[in-house]
């Protein structure tokens, strides 16, 4: 009997060998197609603000560009990084080294964007971070092959933080997601608040994905700040806001400074929960005719309106293809040169250029209020643009850039 059982295991081993050999290990043909990889969170807390919708936006960009560049057809690969830097790093290597991707776009979740940025630097391939926010990408961790496209924690802090402080929110109580993004937000917001004459009286580090904020909110209530600053995003922000409402903190005169907000977040809770919060965004689907046209096509394709990150994904992919065309090559070094210092204007990036020193996309940002539900006459029309901030004012000035490539 033992002989027979061992024979079976032997046969199975051979079977696995055959199965594995049918598996295309290296997808050659890096020559006849250009592959754009979109990597983001498709299954966890940030899945709705970017996720599959971001992939759709990139596909639309490819289609709008004509589906081909330099005579080669373009293929879009979609990868779920599940907010895990280790997984993302492995997948990034696989995308660059064996699947022939020439660029990775997307990467919300700052810790993941940092990890993949490092992979891009090691493999000499382009990484365009659209969703990830940390300003480390253009400061301490900058490198030649990474571009920060869309927004960053500095811009959020300078616009939202300063505005709320100047409006009377002097004493801030911070609730911070305990990872790279939260830390960067805290650092930048603290600086912005202090510059505006305010102070941070306390900070709580909260695990990413935490659902119960009651302990932190109760403590905040006891300390009587002017503002509770939410240095988190996506599902965490939603949960915080839900419970802030539950405890009636705003009725007791405590304002809420929402660090980062997307259209999907508002949809998830309903506009009235946000009580007219003031936020900084990079774009908006209902901004003007250009964005509306895109949003209509996006809606026909996906059934939803795009979040402003998804609009940014579209723009990033389109501009990448255009840069490849200008450089007449997909070689990363050439494309980098084509992007650096490039001035352009598209539906997402207005009065925009890519700063050569740190690879940061400088473009108009918008200060917006969340409308009350009664004012939302068109579905998904949650934001009211209050002010347009030119890129030069919104982003970190060149004099403060410490990046050395």
């Amino acid at each position: 009997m033992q002989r027979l059982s061992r024979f079976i295991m032997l046969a199975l081993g051979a079977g696995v060998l055959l199965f594995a050999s049918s598996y295309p290990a290296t997808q050659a043909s890096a020559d006849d197609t250009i592959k754009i990889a979109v990597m983001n969170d498709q299954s966890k807390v940030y899945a709705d603000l970017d996720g599959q919708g971001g992939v759709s936006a990139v596909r639309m960009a490819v289609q709008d560009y004509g589906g081909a560049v330099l005579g080669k057809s373009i293929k879009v690969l979609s990868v779920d990084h599940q907010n895990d830097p280790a997984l993302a790093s492995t997948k990034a290597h696989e995308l660059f080294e064996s699947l022939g991707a020439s660029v990775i776009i997307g990467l919300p979740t700052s810790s993941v964007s940092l990890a993949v940025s490092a992979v891009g630097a090691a493999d000499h391939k382009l990484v365009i971070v659209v969703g990830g926010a940390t300003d480390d990408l253009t400061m301490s961790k900058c490198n030649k092959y990474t571009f920060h496209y869309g927004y960053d924690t500095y811009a959020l802090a300078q616009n939202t933080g300063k505005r709320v402080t100047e409006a009377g929110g002097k004493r801030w109580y911070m609730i911070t997601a305990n990872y790279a993004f939260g830390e960067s937000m805290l650092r930048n917001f603290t600086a912005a608040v202090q510059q505006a004459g305010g102070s941070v009286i306390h900070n709580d580090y909260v695990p990413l994905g935490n659902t119960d904020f009651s302990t932190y909110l109760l403590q905040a209530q006891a300390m009587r700040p002017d503002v509770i600053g939410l240095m988190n995003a996506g599902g965490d922000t939603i949960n915080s806001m839900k419970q802030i409402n539950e405890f009636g903190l705003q009725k007791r005169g405590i304002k809420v400074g929402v660090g980062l907000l997307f259209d999907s977040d508002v949809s998830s809770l309903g506009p009235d929960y946000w009580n007219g919060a003031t936020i900084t965004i990079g774009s908006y689907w209902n901004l003007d005719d250009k964005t509306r046209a895109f949003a209509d096509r996006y809606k026909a394709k996906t059934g939803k309106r795009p979040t402003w990150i998804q609009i940014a994904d579209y723009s990033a992919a389109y501009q990448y293809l255009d840069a490849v065309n200008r450089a007449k090559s997909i070689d990363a070094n050439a494309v980098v040169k084509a992007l650096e210092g490039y001035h352009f204007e598209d539906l997402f990036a207005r009065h925009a250029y890519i700063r050569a020193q740190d690879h940061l996309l400088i473009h108009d940002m918008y200060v917006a209020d969340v409308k009350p539900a009664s004012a939302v006459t068109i579905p998904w029309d949650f934001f009211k643009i209050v002010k347009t901030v030119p890129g030069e004012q919104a982003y970190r000035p060149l004099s403060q850039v410490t990046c050395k490539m």
Partner: protein
Amino acid sequence: MDLSLLALQLFNGLVSGAFYALLSLGLAIIFGMMRIVNFAHGAMYMLGAFGAYMAAQYLHLPFWGALIIAPLAVGLLGMAFERTLIRRLTSLDPLYNLLLTFGLTLVIEEGMKQFFGMQGTPYSVPSQLQGAVNLGVTFYPTYRLFIIVFSALVCLAVWLAIERTPLGAKIRAATENPPLVQAFGINTSRLATLTFGFGVALAALAGVLAAPTTSVTPAMGSDIIITTFAVVVIGGMGSIGGSIITGFIVGLVAAIGAMVYPPVANTGVFILMALVLLVRPAGLFGVLERRSI
């Protein structure tokens, strides 16, 4: 120490305790009756919360209607699972049903993710329960008080039903000696199905209660099931009353621990479990399983 802060935390502790109690009660009933560790209990809780959302969206039912419909629907679903999948493995080592329900959890969760996305769906506190109550020392959200009172009543009702009614007696007897109970003409297999359905209905009820205060996401079950297991280990798996009391106690202790050191809110349960195991290996109210010869 700020008295109002302490009072608030104690109430918070009772709220999380209420959820632990409801969930571990359901688990204890299922385990006691069928020797099954229902790993999918958290998924049922999540389905209950989504049930409330869907009842509001599609049936335009308010919270109070959802409180009845959702547990009923999930209970029926649970009974279906029991008849088709779980029953096959009941005669085997209970480990198999643990594995099966683990697989069920994955499938249910992933399935819900496909339909609803990850970020959660909105569900608000019913209008009758909005606002806060002045408790003297402090204000506390009305809805959270409701959770505490309602859960306590439900737990009490279930406990009474099991300990003091004829049906409860049948269930307890069937737990101890199924063949004998069958000999009396009682359909133990139907009893098992109903018990399982009831147990998961309790989980779904907890889910409906949770929907207004927590984010309703497909992952909400996974977050809570692990902690619930620890609660059950602390209380001792067979005891119905024990699971209720332990649930509330654990909630309180974790909340107070969180005042001293916030991360303890999530993990205090496991530390407590380790301590209890050192002192009382059977759990606070449990009896050490006797090995069958």
